[in-house]
Protein backbone atom coordinates (compact mmCIF):
# COMPACT_ATOMS: atom_id res chain seq x y z
CA UNK A 1 0.00 0.00 0.00
CA UNK A 2 1.42 3.39 -0.92
CA UNK A 3 1.63 5.59 2.14
CA UNK A 4 2.80 9.13 2.70
CA UNK A 5 5.72 9.47 5.05
CA UNK A 6 7.85 12.13 6.68
CA UNK A 7 11.57 11.50 6.49
CA UNK A 8 13.73 13.33 9.04
CA UNK A 9 17.50 12.97 8.83
CA UNK A 10 19.77 13.54 11.81
CA UNK A 11 23.51 13.78 12.28
CA UNK A 12 23.50 13.11 16.03
CA UNK A 13 22.16 10.10 17.83
CA UNK A 14 20.82 11.99 20.83
CA UNK A 15 18.85 14.36 18.61
CA UNK A 16 17.22 11.38 16.98
CA UNK A 17 16.39 9.80 20.32
CA UNK A 18 14.84 13.05 21.50
CA UNK A 19 12.80 13.30 18.31
CA UNK A 20 11.52 9.74 18.61
CA UNK A 21 10.51 10.18 22.24
CA UNK A 22 8.75 13.47 21.55
CA UNK A 23 6.99 12.12 18.48
CA UNK A 24 5.66 9.16 20.37
CA UNK A 25 4.58 11.29 23.30
CA UNK A 26 2.58 13.41 20.89
CA UNK A 27 1.09 10.22 19.42
CA UNK A 28 2.67 10.47 15.99
CA UNK A 29 3.23 7.07 14.44
CA UNK A 30 6.94 6.24 14.16
CA UNK A 31 7.18 3.81 11.26
CA UNK A 32 10.85 3.01 11.73
CA UNK A 33 14.27 4.42 12.44
CA UNK A 34 17.22 3.81 10.13
CA UNK A 35 20.76 3.96 11.44
CA UNK A 36 24.30 2.81 10.60
CA UNK A 37 24.50 0.90 13.91
CA UNK A 38 22.08 -0.25 16.61
CA UNK A 39 21.23 2.67 18.89
CA UNK A 40 20.93 1.73 22.51
CA UNK A 41 17.82 2.94 24.25
CA UNK A 42 15.91 3.17 21.01
CA UNK A 43 13.94 -0.03 21.58
CA UNK A 44 12.29 1.54 24.61
CA UNK A 45 11.91 4.91 22.90
CA UNK A 46 10.19 3.33 19.89
CA UNK A 47 8.25 0.90 22.04
CA UNK A 48 9.53 -2.17 20.20
CA UNK A 49 8.51 -5.46 21.74
CA UNK A 50 11.31 -7.82 22.65
CA UNK A 51 11.88 -10.29 19.83
CA UNK A 52 10.63 -13.85 20.25
CA UNK A 53 13.61 -15.30 18.38
CA UNK A 54 15.11 -16.86 21.57
CA UNK A 55 12.13 -19.24 21.64
CA UNK A 56 13.04 -20.36 18.14
CA UNK A 57 16.55 -21.08 19.43
CA UNK A 58 15.18 -23.11 22.32
CA UNK A 59 12.87 -25.21 20.18
CA UNK A 60 15.49 -25.76 17.47
CA UNK A 61 18.08 -26.68 20.08
CA UNK A 62 15.79 -29.24 21.65
CA UNK A 63 15.02 -30.64 18.20
CA UNK A 64 18.75 -30.98 17.54
CA UNK A 65 19.26 -32.73 20.85
CA UNK A 66 16.41 -35.14 20.19
CA UNK A 67 17.67 -35.82 16.66
CA UNK A 68 21.19 -36.58 17.86
CA UNK A 69 20.08 -38.89 20.66
CA UNK A 70 17.62 -40.68 18.39
CA UNK A 71 20.19 -41.10 15.63
CA UNK A 72 22.84 -42.50 17.95
CA UNK A 73 20.47 -44.70 19.90
CA UNK A 74 18.80 -46.07 16.77
CA UNK A 75 22.03 -46.82 14.89
CA UNK A 76 24.12 -48.10 17.81
CA UNK A 77 21.47 -49.94 19.81
CA UNK A 78 18.61 -50.94 17.55
CA UNK A 79 19.86 -51.15 13.99
CA UNK A 80 23.42 -52.45 14.30
CA UNK A 81 24.73 -52.97 17.83
CA UNK A 82 28.52 -52.92 17.67
CA UNK A 83 30.54 -54.38 20.51
CA UNK A 84 33.35 -51.93 21.20
CA UNK A 85 35.50 -53.05 24.12
CA UNK A 86 32.52 -54.68 25.80
CA UNK A 87 30.88 -51.34 26.46
CA UNK A 88 27.09 -51.30 26.78
CA UNK A 89 25.23 -50.59 23.53
CA UNK A 90 23.44 -47.62 24.97
CA UNK A 91 26.49 -45.75 26.28
CA UNK A 92 24.75 -42.46 26.85
CA UNK A 93 27.88 -40.66 28.09
CA UNK A 94 29.64 -41.35 24.82
CA UNK A 95 26.67 -39.89 22.96
CA UNK A 96 26.84 -36.55 24.79
CA UNK A 97 29.46 -34.77 22.62
CA UNK A 98 27.57 -35.32 19.39
CA UNK A 99 24.27 -34.46 21.08
CA UNK A 100 25.77 -31.18 22.20
CA UNK A 101 27.18 -30.40 18.76
CA UNK A 102 23.91 -31.05 16.97
CA UNK A 103 22.01 -29.00 19.56
CA UNK A 104 24.25 -26.04 18.80
CA UNK A 105 24.14 -26.61 15.04
CA UNK A 106 20.35 -26.80 14.85
CA UNK A 107 19.85 -23.89 17.24
CA UNK A 108 22.33 -21.61 15.48
CA UNK A 109 21.25 -22.25 11.91
CA UNK A 110 17.54 -22.09 12.70
CA UNK A 111 17.89 -18.85 14.67
CA UNK A 112 19.73 -17.14 11.84
CA UNK A 113 17.25 -18.54 9.31
CA UNK A 114 14.31 -17.32 11.38
CA UNK A 115 15.93 -13.92 11.73
CA UNK A 116 16.47 -13.54 7.99
CA UNK A 117 12.89 -14.67 7.36
CA UNK A 118 11.40 -12.31 9.94
CA UNK A 119 13.51 -9.35 8.84
CA UNK A 120 12.75 -10.27 5.20
CA UNK A 121 16.39 -10.26 4.19
CA UNK A 122 17.29 -12.34 1.18
CA UNK A 123 19.69 -12.13 -1.76
CA UNK A 124 18.31 -10.08 -4.59
CA UNK A 125 15.92 -8.07 -2.45
CA UNK A 126 15.33 -4.56 -3.76
CA UNK A 127 16.81 -2.12 -1.24
CA UNK A 128 14.63 0.63 0.12
CA UNK A 129 16.89 3.39 1.38
CA UNK A 130 15.10 6.55 2.46
CA UNK A 131 18.45 8.31 2.60
CA UNK A 132 21.51 6.94 0.78
CA UNK A 133 23.78 7.90 3.69
CA UNK A 134 22.05 5.65 6.25
CA UNK A 135 24.67 2.96 5.92
CA UNK A 136 27.36 5.62 6.31
CA UNK A 137 26.72 8.30 8.92
CA UNK A 138 23.08 9.44 8.89
CA UNK A 139 20.26 8.62 11.29
CA UNK A 140 16.74 8.78 9.93
CA UNK A 141 13.29 8.79 11.53
CA UNK A 142 10.37 7.87 9.32
CA UNK A 143 6.94 8.98 10.53
CA UNK A 144 3.67 8.13 8.87
CA UNK A 145 2.42 11.45 7.58
CA UNK A 146 -0.47 12.69 9.75
CA UNK A 147 -3.67 13.06 7.77
CA UNK A 148 -4.66 16.56 8.84
CA UNK A 149 -2.64 19.62 7.97
CA UNK A 150 -2.33 20.93 11.50
CA UNK A 151 -0.72 17.80 12.94
CA UNK A 152 1.50 17.61 9.89
CA UNK A 153 2.85 21.08 10.62
CA UNK A 154 3.28 20.13 14.25
CA UNK A 155 5.19 16.98 13.34
CA UNK A 156 7.54 18.85 11.02
CA UNK A 157 8.15 21.51 13.66
CA UNK A 158 8.80 18.87 16.30
CA UNK A 159 11.35 17.07 14.15
CA UNK A 160 13.13 20.30 13.26
CA UNK A 161 13.19 21.44 16.89
CA UNK A 162 14.80 18.17 17.87
CA UNK A 163 17.67 18.89 15.52
CA UNK A 164 16.76 17.26 12.22
CA UNK A 165 19.08 18.38 9.44
CA UNK A 166 16.28 17.94 6.93
CA UNK A 167 12.62 16.91 6.92
CA UNK A 168 11.14 15.78 3.62
CA UNK A 169 7.92 14.20 2.47
CA UNK A 170 7.92 11.01 0.50
CA UNK A 171 5.85 8.02 -0.49
CA UNK A 172 6.61 4.40 0.11
CA UNK A 173 5.09 0.94 0.17
CA UNK A 174 4.93 0.31 3.88
Amino acid at each position, binding site marked *: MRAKILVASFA*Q*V*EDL*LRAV*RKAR*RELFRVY*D*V*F*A*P*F*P*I*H*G*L*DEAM*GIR*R*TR*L*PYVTLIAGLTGLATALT*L*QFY*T*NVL*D*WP*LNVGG*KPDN*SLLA*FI*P*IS*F*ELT*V*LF*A*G*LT*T*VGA*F*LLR*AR*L*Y*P*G*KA*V*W*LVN*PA*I*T*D*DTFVVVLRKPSDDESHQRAVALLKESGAASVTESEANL
Partner: protein
Amino acid sequence: MDNLPEGVTEPRWIAGSPTLKQITADIAAPMEGRPGKLWYVCFVFAALGLLDLLGMATYLIAKGIGVWGLNNSVGWAFDITNFVFWIGIGHAGTLISAILLLFRQKWRTSINRSAEAMTIFAVMCAGLFPLLHMGRPWDAFFIFPYFPNQHGPLWVNFRSPLVWDVFAISTYFTISLVFWFLGLIPDLATMRDRSIGKIKKLVFGVLSLGWNGSHRTWARYEVVSLILAGLATPLVLSVHSIVSMDFATSLLPGWHTTIFPPYFVAGAIYSGFGMVLTLLILTRQTMNLQRYITMRHLDSMAKVLLLTGSIVSFAYATEFFAAWYGGNIYERYHFINRATGPYAFGFYLMVLCNAIAPQLFWFKKIRNNVAILFVISILVNIGMWFERFVIIVVSLHRAFLPSGWGMFYPTLIDFGILVGSFGLFFTLFLLFIRFMPMIAAWEVKAVAVEQAGHGADPGHGAEGGSHAG
Protein backbone atom coordinates in the same frame (compact mmCIF):
# COMPACT_ATOMS: atom_id res chain seq x y z
CA MET B 1 30.65 5.30 31.73
CA ASP B 2 28.13 3.01 33.36
CA ASN B 3 29.34 1.51 36.59
CA LEU B 4 32.83 2.88 36.89
CA PRO B 5 33.83 4.64 40.08
CA GLU B 6 34.39 8.38 40.14
CA GLY B 7 37.52 9.52 38.33
CA VAL B 8 38.01 6.33 36.34
CA THR B 9 37.59 6.72 32.62
CA GLU B 10 36.91 4.02 30.07
CA PRO B 11 39.90 3.25 27.89
CA ARG B 12 39.73 4.67 24.38
CA TRP B 13 39.83 2.06 21.66
CA ILE B 14 39.97 4.42 18.69
CA ALA B 15 42.75 6.96 18.37
CA GLY B 16 41.49 10.52 17.98
CA SER B 17 37.83 11.25 17.32
CA PRO B 18 37.10 10.42 13.69
CA THR B 19 33.66 11.29 12.34
CA LEU B 20 31.40 8.45 11.25
CA LYS B 21 32.06 9.34 7.63
CA GLN B 22 35.77 9.22 8.28
CA ILE B 23 35.43 5.75 9.82
CA THR B 24 33.58 4.44 6.78
CA ALA B 25 36.18 5.94 4.49
CA ASP B 26 39.14 4.61 6.49
CA ILE B 27 37.77 1.08 6.64
CA ALA B 28 36.74 1.04 3.00
CA ALA B 29 40.09 2.49 1.88
CA PRO B 30 41.97 -0.84 1.52
CA MET B 31 39.15 -2.12 -0.71
CA GLU B 32 38.96 0.98 -2.85
CA GLY B 33 42.57 1.93 -3.43
CA ARG B 34 45.41 -0.18 -4.68
CA PRO B 35 47.15 -2.12 -1.94
CA GLY B 36 50.73 -1.27 -1.09
CA LYS B 37 53.82 -3.06 -2.38
CA LEU B 38 54.06 -5.13 0.80
CA TRP B 39 50.65 -6.66 0.16
CA TYR B 40 51.74 -7.81 -3.31
CA VAL B 41 54.97 -9.25 -1.95
CA CYS B 42 53.08 -11.17 0.73
CA PHE B 43 50.52 -12.32 -1.81
CA VAL B 44 53.12 -13.69 -4.20
CA PHE B 45 54.69 -15.74 -1.40
CA ALA B 46 51.30 -16.96 -0.19
CA ALA B 47 50.21 -17.91 -3.68
CA LEU B 48 53.46 -19.83 -4.21
CA GLY B 49 52.70 -21.67 -0.98
CA LEU B 50 49.24 -22.50 -2.25
CA LEU B 51 50.69 -23.81 -5.52
CA ASP B 52 53.08 -25.93 -3.49
CA LEU B 53 50.13 -27.32 -1.54
CA LEU B 54 48.24 -28.19 -4.72
CA GLY B 55 51.24 -29.95 -6.19
CA MET B 56 52.17 -31.83 -3.03
CA ALA B 57 48.59 -32.86 -2.27
CA THR B 58 48.10 -34.11 -5.82
CA TYR B 59 51.29 -36.16 -5.56
CA LEU B 60 50.22 -37.48 -2.15
CA ILE B 61 46.81 -38.56 -3.37
CA ALA B 62 48.27 -40.13 -6.49
CA LYS B 63 50.99 -42.09 -4.65
CA GLY B 64 49.34 -42.71 -1.28
CA ILE B 65 50.34 -41.56 2.18
CA GLY B 66 53.47 -43.70 2.10
CA VAL B 67 55.23 -40.64 0.73
CA TRP B 68 54.96 -39.18 4.22
CA GLY B 69 57.45 -40.32 6.84
CA LEU B 70 54.86 -42.35 8.72
CA ASN B 71 55.58 -45.93 9.76
CA ASN B 72 54.20 -48.68 12.00
CA SER B 73 55.34 -47.02 15.22
CA VAL B 74 54.48 -43.47 14.31
CA GLY B 75 51.18 -43.54 12.43
CA TRP B 76 50.30 -39.94 13.22
CA ALA B 77 52.87 -37.22 12.77
CA PHE B 78 52.91 -33.99 10.77
CA ASP B 79 49.38 -34.55 9.47
CA ILE B 80 47.67 -34.66 12.85
CA THR B 81 50.09 -32.13 14.34
CA ASN B 82 49.10 -29.69 11.61
CA PHE B 83 45.44 -30.51 12.10
CA VAL B 84 45.51 -29.77 15.84
CA PHE B 85 47.70 -26.73 15.22
CA TRP B 86 45.28 -25.14 12.74
CA ILE B 87 42.17 -25.98 14.73
CA GLY B 88 43.81 -24.34 17.73
CA ILE B 89 44.56 -21.18 15.74
CA GLY B 90 40.88 -20.87 14.97
CA HIS B 91 39.88 -20.71 18.60
CA ALA B 92 41.10 -17.18 19.20
CA GLY B 93 38.71 -15.84 16.57
CA THR B 94 35.70 -17.30 18.31
CA LEU B 95 37.00 -16.19 21.67
CA ILE B 96 37.28 -12.62 20.44
CA SER B 97 33.99 -12.57 18.58
CA ALA B 98 31.80 -14.54 20.97
CA ILE B 99 33.25 -14.72 24.47
CA LEU B 100 34.40 -11.11 24.53
CA LEU B 101 30.98 -10.09 23.21
CA LEU B 102 29.28 -11.81 26.12
CA PHE B 103 31.69 -10.09 28.50
CA ARG B 104 30.98 -6.77 26.75
CA GLN B 105 34.64 -6.10 26.04
CA LYS B 106 34.69 -3.13 23.69
CA TRP B 107 38.22 -3.75 22.51
CA ARG B 108 36.98 -6.65 20.40
CA THR B 109 35.22 -4.36 17.92
CA SER B 110 38.24 -3.42 15.82
CA ILE B 111 39.67 -6.91 15.63
CA ASN B 112 36.73 -9.32 15.72
CA ARG B 113 36.06 -9.36 11.97
CA SER B 114 39.56 -10.33 10.93
CA ALA B 115 39.89 -12.75 13.85
CA GLU B 116 36.70 -14.52 12.74
CA ALA B 117 37.97 -14.66 9.18
CA MET B 118 41.16 -16.17 10.54
CA THR B 119 39.08 -18.80 12.34
CA ILE B 120 37.32 -19.82 9.17
CA PHE B 121 40.49 -20.03 7.12
CA ALA B 122 42.31 -21.91 9.88
CA VAL B 123 39.52 -24.47 10.17
CA MET B 124 39.67 -24.93 6.41
CA CYS B 125 43.40 -25.66 6.67
CA ALA B 126 42.75 -27.99 9.60
CA GLY B 127 40.06 -29.94 7.75
CA LEU B 128 42.49 -30.57 4.92
CA PHE B 129 44.74 -32.82 7.03
CA PRO B 130 42.37 -35.56 8.17
CA LEU B 131 41.10 -35.54 4.60
CA LEU B 132 44.58 -36.10 3.16
CA HIS B 133 45.44 -38.54 5.94
CA MET B 134 42.58 -40.77 4.79
CA GLY B 135 44.60 -41.52 1.67
CA ARG B 136 41.37 -41.84 -0.30
CA PRO B 137 39.79 -38.41 0.10
CA TRP B 138 37.06 -39.28 -2.40
CA ASP B 139 35.67 -41.65 0.22
CA ALA B 140 35.64 -38.95 2.89
CA PHE B 141 31.86 -39.08 3.17
CA PHE B 142 32.25 -42.43 4.97
CA ILE B 143 32.86 -40.44 8.15
CA PHE B 144 29.27 -39.21 8.18
CA PRO B 145 26.40 -41.50 9.10
CA TYR B 146 24.40 -41.91 5.92
CA PHE B 147 21.81 -44.24 4.62
CA PRO B 148 21.45 -46.30 2.53
CA ASN B 149 25.11 -47.25 2.37
CA GLN B 150 27.01 -49.94 0.58
CA HIS B 151 28.13 -51.70 3.73
CA GLY B 152 24.67 -52.91 4.60
CA PRO B 153 23.26 -51.35 7.73
CA LEU B 154 26.71 -50.54 9.14
CA TRP B 155 27.03 -47.14 10.77
CA VAL B 156 29.86 -45.02 12.07
CA ASN B 157 30.90 -45.79 15.64
CA PHE B 158 29.41 -43.02 17.73
CA ARG B 159 31.56 -44.01 20.71
CA SER B 160 34.71 -42.97 18.86
CA PRO B 161 36.20 -39.53 19.60
CA LEU B 162 37.23 -39.36 15.95
CA VAL B 163 33.55 -39.36 15.00
CA TRP B 164 32.86 -36.74 17.68
CA ASP B 165 35.58 -34.70 15.99
CA VAL B 166 33.76 -34.86 12.67
CA PHE B 167 30.62 -33.45 14.24
CA ALA B 168 32.46 -30.91 16.38
CA ILE B 169 34.55 -29.49 13.58
CA SER B 170 31.82 -29.36 10.97
CA THR B 171 29.50 -27.66 13.47
CA TYR B 172 32.25 -25.27 14.46
CA PHE B 173 32.98 -24.36 10.87
CA THR B 174 29.31 -23.86 10.00
CA ILE B 175 28.48 -21.73 13.03
CA SER B 176 31.65 -19.64 12.66
CA LEU B 177 30.86 -19.02 9.01
CA VAL B 178 27.28 -18.00 9.75
CA PHE B 179 28.35 -15.76 12.64
CA TRP B 180 30.97 -14.10 10.49
CA PHE B 181 28.58 -13.53 7.60
CA LEU B 182 25.88 -12.16 9.89
CA GLY B 183 28.36 -9.62 11.23
CA LEU B 184 29.37 -8.68 7.69
CA ILE B 185 25.86 -7.92 6.38
CA PRO B 186 25.61 -4.26 7.58
CA ASP B 187 29.13 -3.52 6.33
CA LEU B 188 28.41 -5.17 2.99
CA ALA B 189 25.42 -2.84 2.73
CA THR B 190 27.71 0.11 3.42
CA MET B 191 30.02 -1.08 0.65
CA ARG B 192 27.05 -1.56 -1.67
CA ASP B 193 25.99 2.05 -1.12
CA ARG B 194 29.53 3.35 -1.55
CA SER B 195 30.76 1.42 -4.53
CA ILE B 196 30.59 2.86 -7.99
CA GLY B 197 31.60 -0.10 -10.15
CA LYS B 198 28.73 -2.14 -11.55
CA ILE B 199 30.11 -5.54 -10.62
CA LYS B 200 31.02 -4.44 -7.10
CA LYS B 201 27.58 -2.97 -6.60
CA LEU B 202 25.94 -6.17 -7.82
CA VAL B 203 28.09 -8.46 -5.66
CA PHE B 204 27.72 -6.38 -2.51
CA GLY B 205 24.03 -5.93 -3.30
CA VAL B 206 23.40 -9.67 -3.43
CA LEU B 207 25.54 -10.37 -0.36
CA SER B 208 24.01 -7.63 1.79
CA LEU B 209 20.54 -9.21 1.41
CA GLY B 210 18.73 -5.90 1.03
CA TRP B 211 19.90 -4.51 4.38
CA ASN B 212 18.64 -0.96 4.92
CA GLY B 213 19.59 -0.16 8.52
CA SER B 214 16.06 -0.45 9.89
CA HIS B 215 16.10 -0.32 13.66
CA ARG B 216 13.41 -2.99 13.88
CA THR B 217 15.91 -5.25 12.14
CA TRP B 218 18.81 -3.97 14.24
CA ALA B 219 16.91 -4.84 17.43
CA ARG B 220 16.49 -8.44 16.31
CA TYR B 221 19.99 -8.52 14.89
CA GLU B 222 21.53 -7.71 18.25
CA VAL B 223 19.55 -10.46 19.97
CA VAL B 224 20.56 -12.97 17.29
CA SER B 225 24.23 -11.95 17.67
CA LEU B 226 24.02 -12.53 21.41
CA ILE B 227 22.34 -15.90 20.92
CA LEU B 228 25.01 -16.99 18.45
CA ALA B 229 27.71 -15.79 20.84
CA GLY B 230 26.07 -17.77 23.61
CA LEU B 231 26.04 -20.86 21.41
CA ALA B 232 29.54 -20.37 20.06
CA THR B 233 31.11 -19.99 23.50
CA PRO B 234 30.46 -23.54 24.76
CA LEU B 235 30.96 -24.73 21.19
CA VAL B 236 34.51 -23.46 20.95
CA LEU B 237 35.35 -24.97 24.34
CA SER B 238 33.84 -28.27 23.22
CA VAL B 239 35.76 -28.39 19.94
CA HIS B 240 39.23 -28.46 21.37
CA SER B 241 38.08 -30.60 24.29
CA ILE B 242 36.89 -33.15 21.77
CA VAL B 243 40.11 -32.84 19.77
CA SER B 244 42.01 -33.54 22.99
CA MET B 245 39.84 -36.62 23.57
CA ASP B 246 41.22 -38.10 20.35
CA PHE B 247 44.31 -38.53 22.52
CA ALA B 248 43.01 -38.62 26.07
CA THR B 249 40.64 -41.57 25.54
CA SER B 250 43.54 -43.74 24.36
CA LEU B 251 45.77 -45.72 26.75
CA LEU B 252 49.05 -44.34 25.44
CA PRO B 253 51.47 -42.77 27.94
CA GLY B 254 51.60 -39.05 27.25
CA TRP B 255 48.08 -39.08 25.81
CA HIS B 256 46.10 -40.81 28.54
CA THR B 257 45.65 -37.74 30.74
CA THR B 258 42.57 -36.18 32.30
CA ILE B 259 43.93 -32.63 32.12
CA PHE B 260 43.94 -32.67 28.33
CA PRO B 261 40.65 -30.84 27.61
CA PRO B 262 41.35 -27.62 29.57
CA TYR B 263 45.04 -27.83 28.68
CA PHE B 264 44.25 -28.05 24.98
CA VAL B 265 41.69 -25.26 25.12
CA ALA B 266 44.15 -22.93 26.87
CA GLY B 267 46.83 -23.89 24.35
CA ALA B 268 44.44 -23.27 21.47
CA ILE B 269 43.58 -19.80 22.68
CA TYR B 270 47.25 -19.11 23.30
CA SER B 271 48.29 -20.12 19.79
CA GLY B 272 45.28 -18.39 18.25
CA PHE B 273 46.08 -15.11 19.94
CA GLY B 274 49.65 -15.49 18.74
CA MET B 275 48.36 -15.75 15.18
CA VAL B 276 45.89 -12.87 15.62
CA LEU B 277 48.74 -10.73 16.87
CA THR B 278 50.93 -11.68 13.89
CA LEU B 279 48.16 -10.94 11.41
CA LEU B 280 47.00 -7.71 13.00
CA ILE B 281 50.48 -6.28 13.28
CA LEU B 282 50.95 -7.06 9.59
CA THR B 283 47.60 -5.57 8.55
CA ARG B 284 47.77 -2.44 10.66
CA GLN B 285 51.17 -1.69 9.14
CA THR B 286 50.29 -2.56 5.54
CA MET B 287 46.74 -1.13 5.46
CA ASN B 288 47.29 2.00 7.60
CA LEU B 289 44.76 1.08 10.24
CA GLN B 290 46.77 2.14 13.30
CA ARG B 291 43.92 4.38 14.33
CA TYR B 292 41.57 1.42 14.84
CA ILE B 293 44.00 -1.32 15.79
CA THR B 294 45.75 0.66 18.49
CA MET B 295 48.68 -0.14 20.74
CA ARG B 296 46.09 -0.70 23.43
CA HIS B 297 44.64 -3.59 21.41
CA LEU B 298 48.06 -5.15 21.02
CA ASP B 299 48.65 -4.63 24.74
CA SER B 300 45.41 -6.44 25.64
CA MET B 301 46.25 -9.33 23.34
CA ALA B 302 49.69 -9.61 24.90
CA LYS B 303 48.03 -9.90 28.30
CA VAL B 304 45.82 -12.72 27.03
CA LEU B 305 48.98 -14.42 25.74
CA LEU B 306 50.59 -14.03 29.15
CA LEU B 307 47.59 -15.58 30.89
CA THR B 308 47.07 -18.50 28.53
CA GLY B 309 50.82 -19.07 28.20
CA SER B 310 51.02 -19.38 31.98
CA ILE B 311 48.11 -21.85 32.02
CA VAL B 312 49.87 -23.93 29.37
CA SER B 313 53.14 -23.85 31.34
CA PHE B 314 51.29 -24.97 34.43
CA ALA B 315 49.84 -27.87 32.44
CA TYR B 316 53.33 -28.90 31.28
CA ALA B 317 54.50 -28.96 34.89
CA THR B 318 51.40 -30.86 36.00
CA GLU B 319 52.07 -33.55 33.41
CA PHE B 320 55.58 -34.10 34.68
CA PHE B 321 54.42 -34.06 38.29
CA ALA B 322 51.70 -36.63 37.57
CA ALA B 323 54.19 -38.85 35.74
CA TRP B 324 56.47 -38.85 38.77
CA TYR B 325 53.75 -39.00 41.42
CA GLY B 326 51.59 -41.52 39.55
CA GLY B 327 54.29 -44.17 39.67
CA ASN B 328 53.40 -45.74 36.33
CA ILE B 329 56.68 -46.83 34.73
CA TYR B 330 55.53 -46.30 31.14
CA GLU B 331 54.29 -42.83 31.98
CA ARG B 332 57.51 -42.06 33.79
CA TYR B 333 59.63 -43.32 30.92
CA HIS B 334 57.63 -41.27 28.45
CA PHE B 335 58.37 -38.04 30.28
CA ILE B 336 62.04 -38.85 30.76
CA ASN B 337 62.16 -39.60 27.05
CA ARG B 338 60.34 -36.37 26.27
CA ALA B 339 63.05 -34.33 27.99
CA THR B 340 66.12 -36.43 27.12
CA GLY B 341 65.18 -38.59 24.10
CA PRO B 342 65.87 -38.06 20.41
CA TYR B 343 63.10 -35.47 20.09
CA ALA B 344 64.19 -33.48 23.16
CA PHE B 345 64.93 -30.44 20.96
CA GLY B 346 61.20 -30.18 20.23
CA PHE B 347 60.42 -30.25 23.92
CA TYR B 348 62.92 -27.52 24.79
CA LEU B 349 61.77 -25.39 21.88
CA MET B 350 58.22 -25.71 23.14
CA VAL B 351 59.20 -24.76 26.69
CA LEU B 352 61.22 -21.81 25.44
CA CYS B 353 58.44 -20.48 23.21
CA ASN B 354 55.38 -21.28 25.32
CA ALA B 355 56.53 -21.11 28.91
CA ILE B 356 59.38 -18.62 28.90
CA ALA B 357 58.77 -16.20 26.01
CA PRO B 358 55.29 -15.00 27.09
CA GLN B 359 56.58 -14.23 30.59
CA LEU B 360 58.27 -11.19 29.01
CA PHE B 361 54.78 -9.71 28.71
CA TRP B 362 54.81 -8.82 32.39
CA PHE B 363 56.73 -5.73 31.27
CA LYS B 364 54.72 -2.90 29.80
CA LYS B 365 57.70 -1.76 27.73
CA ILE B 366 57.71 -5.07 25.90
CA ARG B 367 53.94 -5.09 25.41
CA ASN B 368 54.27 -1.69 23.79
CA ASN B 369 57.03 -2.59 21.37
CA VAL B 370 55.54 -3.69 18.05
CA ALA B 371 58.73 -5.37 16.82
CA ILE B 372 59.15 -7.52 19.94
CA LEU B 373 55.43 -8.34 19.97
CA PHE B 374 55.70 -9.50 16.38
CA VAL B 375 58.69 -11.70 17.09
CA ILE B 376 57.11 -13.26 20.18
CA SER B 377 53.82 -13.82 18.35
CA ILE B 378 55.72 -15.92 15.81
CA LEU B 379 57.60 -17.74 18.56
CA VAL B 380 54.22 -18.59 20.11
CA ASN B 381 53.12 -20.28 16.93
CA ILE B 382 56.37 -22.17 16.50
CA GLY B 383 56.14 -23.29 20.10
CA MET B 384 52.56 -24.43 19.81
CA TRP B 385 53.28 -26.39 16.64
CA PHE B 386 56.10 -28.17 18.47
CA GLU B 387 53.85 -28.79 21.47
CA ARG B 388 51.53 -30.86 19.28
CA PHE B 389 54.49 -32.53 17.60
CA VAL B 390 55.89 -33.50 21.00
CA ILE B 391 52.55 -34.78 22.25
CA ILE B 392 51.88 -36.81 19.13
CA VAL B 393 55.21 -38.09 17.84
CA VAL B 394 57.12 -38.48 21.10
CA SER B 395 54.23 -40.45 22.63
CA LEU B 396 53.98 -42.75 19.64
CA HIS B 397 57.61 -43.42 18.89
CA ARG B 398 58.48 -45.20 22.16
CA ALA B 399 55.40 -46.69 23.73
CA PHE B 400 55.51 -49.83 25.89
CA LEU B 401 57.66 -52.64 24.43
CA PRO B 402 60.99 -51.59 22.86
CA SER B 403 60.28 -54.00 20.00
CA GLY B 404 57.59 -51.57 18.85
CA TRP B 405 59.80 -48.50 19.00
CA GLY B 406 60.70 -46.48 15.94
CA MET B 407 61.64 -43.05 14.70
CA PHE B 408 59.76 -40.59 12.57
CA TYR B 409 61.71 -38.63 9.98
CA PRO B 410 59.69 -36.11 8.00
CA THR B 411 60.00 -36.24 4.22
CA LEU B 412 59.96 -33.41 1.73
CA ILE B 413 56.22 -34.00 1.23
CA ASP B 414 55.63 -33.61 4.98
CA PHE B 415 57.33 -30.22 4.95
CA GLY B 416 55.80 -29.26 1.62
CA ILE B 417 52.26 -29.78 2.81
CA LEU B 418 52.90 -27.96 6.11
CA VAL B 419 54.30 -24.97 4.22
CA GLY B 420 51.49 -25.28 1.69
CA SER B 421 48.84 -25.02 4.40
CA PHE B 422 50.34 -21.67 5.39
CA GLY B 423 50.12 -20.70 1.74
CA LEU B 424 46.42 -21.52 1.65
CA PHE B 425 45.81 -19.66 4.91
CA PHE B 426 47.66 -16.52 3.95
CA THR B 427 46.26 -16.43 0.41
CA LEU B 428 42.73 -16.49 1.81
CA PHE B 429 43.54 -13.95 4.49
CA LEU B 430 45.25 -11.54 2.11
CA LEU B 431 42.33 -11.75 -0.32
CA PHE B 432 39.98 -11.12 2.59
CA ILE B 433 41.69 -7.93 3.77
CA ARG B 434 41.78 -6.71 0.18
CA PHE B 435 38.18 -7.39 -0.85
CA MET B 436 36.07 -7.41 2.31
CA PRO B 437 35.60 -4.88 5.11
CA MET B 438 38.20 -6.26 7.50
CA ILE B 439 37.12 -4.11 10.42
CA ALA B 440 33.52 -4.16 11.62
CA ALA B 441 32.72 -0.57 10.64
CA TRP B 442 29.28 -0.53 12.24
CA GLU B 443 30.63 -1.74 15.58
CA VAL B 444 33.49 0.73 15.50
CA LYS B 445 31.01 3.53 14.78
CA ALA B 446 28.94 2.58 17.82
CA VAL B 447 32.06 2.62 19.99
CA ALA B 448 33.19 5.91 18.46
CA VAL B 449 29.86 7.58 19.22
CA GLU B 450 29.92 6.30 22.77
CA GLN B 451 33.53 7.36 23.18
CA ALA B 452 32.69 10.85 21.98
CA GLY B 453 30.33 11.12 24.94
CA HIS B 454 27.13 10.79 22.98
CA GLY B 455 26.12 7.93 25.26
CA ALA B 456 22.62 7.20 24.11
CA ASP B 457 21.25 5.29 27.05
CA PRO B 458 17.90 6.50 28.31
CA GLY B 459 18.01 8.24 31.65
CA HIS B 460 21.20 10.11 30.78
CA GLY B 461 19.82 11.87 27.72
CA ALA B 462 18.29 15.30 27.63
CA GLU B 463 14.88 13.74 28.08
CA GLY B 464 15.82 12.19 31.39
CA GLY B 465 14.19 8.91 30.56
CA SER B 466 10.70 10.37 30.44
CA HIS B 467 9.89 8.73 27.13
CA ALA B 468 6.24 8.14 26.53
CA GLY B 469 4.97 4.66 25.90
